[in-house]
């Protein structure tokens, strides 16, 4: 027997006959695959371009020499004197503002011969409308300087300006300091020797690394964020998997008689298995291919959302182009297809077990499903216990791997509970259902519990999507509430100042040295907390070192500590090698109160004792905070980056702000009142979770398609029954109402099951996955009204998903439907 011919007749024909159902199944696979692809591509594009775009201008760089708090220029002189064949280039990379107060990254580099010219990237030229020969003004901390655009570097997607390094130091008032030294080893010279020599010559606290290392480090920092997005995207695929299972199961039930005939004429059970797996594989391949195209489109849509998040809470990066590689195409097809084949395994094996004679009995399968209920409940209990147990363990390699597995166990438990849940609830609803006029409720309830196996798969798929919506909804709302309470505490000052320009995580543009004194002399100012922040390395990961006035923090009570008395913690800081660390920092590096941290500051290695751990939700990079007096001991030149101004009691905050604005008019500072900052923080928060909501919406759409698909299957399988009911006097409206009642019941059951799973998953997300990924303590605050609204909306959508199948059922010709052979 020619297998392919058989497969063509047996797989392709039915698929073509049921075009609509095939299309719905393919679309659900496609959407699942599309979400996975889109999240991956957009994530790559949003975070992939960490490496400085300047490399294209300077050429290949082998090593970078960096130091916390900046590189001393004298080290540059020492390195150039080394007896190695290598080129050393000093680089400054800092944000400056243009005349339009827009921020742009400025590179100070050596090769420029004329200190009054600038090279700009094509992106910058486009953004500001600059042309070669134009004279442009750049503004550093308190200085401005004119530069002539000498050249526009073509094909650059990132905005930057390059000027001569000496001019850059002048503009920034940072004489004697550079940001890094780039080393290019000559060909023929041994790179390892060069690295050894540099390490020996540079101060011990200096870091010598390959440029790739910096990019890798950034990627590592985003790992948790990207993993959580990825896992979220797999849920859509999981919902798709339930639907593939359903489609194949339906086609096995529907073709039982055909299978029996095939078996009777000599097709082996393995042949039957292959036919159904082939059908799943085909749906998988077509779905995946469509999914790739859709995912590519979707990626362009969400790349902005992801890079916004990355920029606002992690690190500066400009989104690159969305690039679809052959690897991602292959991965997508492989994933989509294997998910399809695996989901089809159980129904296909059932098809293979069909005995030729048994094939004629239609009800057998459903009966079987009912018999397994007890076994399924046992499996559910085991999966539930496994989920609970796995949630007790810590992260593996910094990732909440066991938390993810626990989530999967919880979904499995739900899938297994589903049949028992569906039949129990329908039994409970028996009498209210009969009250729906025209027998619609009675028949709908009965037919759903009669096809229990199929009903419970649809309910599980929809419940999984709903659970995802609910759990993420609870998590985000709890997080938002926690952050808002924290902001109440944290933001107690009336006015906040920072350098002008777009704020980005990990970059702390310095304020002009005169600014603190001007503020202190402004009438109405009671206190001003001058804050110094800079990015530094700790155990190979980036974190923020900050120093402020711990006396003001103590008096204004702006920090809350996990344990210990905040007064005595804050009093112990000034002039001591003592620091406080933020909760994410403590969790990420396993740091506790009393521990000693060794931190390289300039060319000194300092041992800091941890005085306390405080709650912080501003970034998962982690903070180490010292008193200003301590910082001054080690980095006396560190510029101030932020200032919090407290207005004296009785003074008018608005008036004080206006005074500050006019006194600081000559400096590029951004002055914001408390409310603006608070609102800004909440906006950043909401933007961060925009992509999450988008992914959820897609999972819900997949589930809706699945519901429509399954209802249609139920209608097709009950053609005869529907025809009969028409004979018995039902009109079109009653048939429609019957199918819509079924849709409503499916929605109701899914909402109930989804609510339970969602509540469980939200606890998992809040206390296990988020805690282990980001180190934040989130207080549980379920948004009840929002959840009720969302559930109602999904329920209405589910009923809407029944509209087409209902119309289809109402259009069936009764005589054809009941036709007896």
């Amino acid at each position, binding site marked *: 027997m020619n297998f392919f011919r058989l497969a063509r007749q047996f797989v392709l024909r039915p698929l073509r006959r049921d075009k609509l159902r095939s299309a719905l199944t393919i679309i659900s696979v496609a959407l699942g695959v599309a979400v996975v692809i889109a999240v991956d591509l957009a994530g790559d594009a949003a975070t992939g371009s960490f490496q400085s775009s300047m490399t294209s201008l300077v050429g290949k760089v082998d090593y970078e020499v960096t130091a916390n708090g900046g590189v001393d220029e004298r080290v540059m002189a020492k390195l150039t004197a080394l007896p190695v064949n290598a080129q050393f280039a000093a680089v400054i990379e800092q944000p400056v503002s243009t005349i339009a107060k827009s921020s742009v990254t400025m590179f100070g580099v050596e090769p420029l011969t004329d200190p009054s010219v600038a090279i700009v990237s094509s992106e910058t030229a486009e953004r500001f409308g600059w042309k070669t020969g134009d004279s442009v003004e750049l503004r550093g901390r308190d200085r401005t300087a004119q530069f002539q655009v000498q050249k526009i570097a073509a094909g650059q997607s990132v905005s930057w300006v390059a000027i001569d390094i000496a001019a850059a130091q002048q503009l920034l008032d940072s004489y004697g300091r550079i940001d890094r030294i780039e080393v290019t080893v000559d060909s023929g010279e041994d790179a390892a020797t060069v690295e050894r020599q540099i390490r020996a010559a540079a101060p011990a606290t200096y870091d010598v690394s390959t440029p790739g290392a910096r990019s890798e480090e950034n990627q590592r920092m985003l790992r948790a964020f990207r993993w959580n997005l990825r896992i979220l995207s797999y849920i859509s695929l999981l919902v798709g998997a339930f639907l593939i299972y359903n489609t194949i199961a339906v086609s096995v039930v529907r073709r039982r008689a055909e299978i029996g005939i095939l078996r009777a004429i000599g097709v082996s059970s393995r042949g039957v298995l292959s036919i159904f797996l082939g059908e799943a594989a085909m749906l998988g391949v077509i779905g995946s291919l469509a999914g790739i195209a859709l995912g590519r489109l979707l990626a362009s849509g969400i790349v902005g959302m992801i890079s916004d998040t990355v920029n606002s809470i992690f690190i500066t990066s400009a989104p690159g182009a969305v690039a679809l590689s052959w690897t991602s195409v292959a991965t997508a097809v492989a994933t989509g297809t294997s998910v399809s084949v695996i989901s089809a395994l159980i129904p296909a094996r059932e098809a293979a077990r069909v005995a030729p004679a048994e094939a004629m009995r239609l*009800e057998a399968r459903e009966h079987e499903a009912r018999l397994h209920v007890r076994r399924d409940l046992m499996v559910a209990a085991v999966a539930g216990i496994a989920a609970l147990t796995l949630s007790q363990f810590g992260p593996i390699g910094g990732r909440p791997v066991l938390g993810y597995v626990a989530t999967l166990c919880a979904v499995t438990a739900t899938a297994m509970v589903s049949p028992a849940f569906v039949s129990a609830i329908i039994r409970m609803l028996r009498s209210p259902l009969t009250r729906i*006029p*025209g*027998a619609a409720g*009675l*028949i709908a309830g*009965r*037919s759903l*519990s*009669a096809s229990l196996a199929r009903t419970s798969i649809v309910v599980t798929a929809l419940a999984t999507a709903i659970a995802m919506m609910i759990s993420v909804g609870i998590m985000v709302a709890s997080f938002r509430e926690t952050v808002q309470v924290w902001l109440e505490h944290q933001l107690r000052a009336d006015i906040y100042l920072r350098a002008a320009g777009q704020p980005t995580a990990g970059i702390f543009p310095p304020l002009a040295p005169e600014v603190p004194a001007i503020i202190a002399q402004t009438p109405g100012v009671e206190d001003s907390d001058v804050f110094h922040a800079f990015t530094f390395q700790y155990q190979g990961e980036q974190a923020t070192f900050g120093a402020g006035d711990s006396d003001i923090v103590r008096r204004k009570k702006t920090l809350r500590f996990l344990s210990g008395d905040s007064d005595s913690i804050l009093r112990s800081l000034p002039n001591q090698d003592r620091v406080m660390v933020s909760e994410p920092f403590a969790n990420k590096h396993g740091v506790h109160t009393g521990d000693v941290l060794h931190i390289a500051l300039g060319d000194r290695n300092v041992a800091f004792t941890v005085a306390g751990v405080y709650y912080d939700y501003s970034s998962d990079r982690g903070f180490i905070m010292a008193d200003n007096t301590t910082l001054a001991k080690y980095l006396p030149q560190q510029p101030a980056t932020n200032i919090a101004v407290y207005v004296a009691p009785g003074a008018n905050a608005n008036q004080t702000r206006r005074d500050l604005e006019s006194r600081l008019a000559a400096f590029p500072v951004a002055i914001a009142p408390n409310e603006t900052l608070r609102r800004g923080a909440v906006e950043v928060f909401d933007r961060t979770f925009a992509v999450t909501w988008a992914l959820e919406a897609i999972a819900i759409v997949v589930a809706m398609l699945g519901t429509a698909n399954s209802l249609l299957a139920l209608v097709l399988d009950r053609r*005869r*029954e529907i025809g*009969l*009911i*028409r*004979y*018995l*006097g*039902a*009109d*079109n409206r*009653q048939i429609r109402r019957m199918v819509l009642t079924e849709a409503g019941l499916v929605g109701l059951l899914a909402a109930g099951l989804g609510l339970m799973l969602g509540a469980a998953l939200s606890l998992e997300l809040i206390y296990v996955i988020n805690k282990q990924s980001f180190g934040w303590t989130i207080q549980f605050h379920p948004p009840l009204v929002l959840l009720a609204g969302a559930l109602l909306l999904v329920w209405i959508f589910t009923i809407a998903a029944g509209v087409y199948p209902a119309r289809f059922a109402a259009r069936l010709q*009764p*005589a054809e439907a*009941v036709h*007896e052979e």
Partner: protein
Amino acid sequence: MDFPTSGEVEVAGLVTSGLGDAALTGLRRGKIGFVFQFFQLLPTLTALENVELPLMLAGARNIRATARERLDWVGLPEKADALPFQLSGGQMQRVAIARALVHNPAILVADEPTGNLDTASGDLVLRLIRRAADEFGAAVVMATHSAEAAAIADVRVRMRDGLIESVE
């Protein structure tokens, strides 16, 4: 239900080809009961619920009592809560007859009602159909291949290859 390829069907003075869907549904609800060769009970409903169904669809009152009365009439009061798969073929057909008569139709259409039954059950069913005409005043239109079934009729129309051969 089905439309003639030529000619017209007239039920109680109404030409069916001229009726809309609503009117046809009304006709089925009020005037016609159906009995099929393969019984066509809804497998998920109990015997009693199957009998109740036409009344429920029509939005009638006193549904339960009427349905029980019909089930008693076909001699199956004790099977009210049984599901169709728990019944024998003859019992299923009797439930189907109860269902066809539950709304006192003017016409009972029976398509090979004994075709799928053994002789004893078939006889029982035929007696019920005859009584339906006598006690409910329903005009029974029955299609059959069986001479015994045809014997209970008052008028017999013999057909061959789609054409009327004789009317007795």
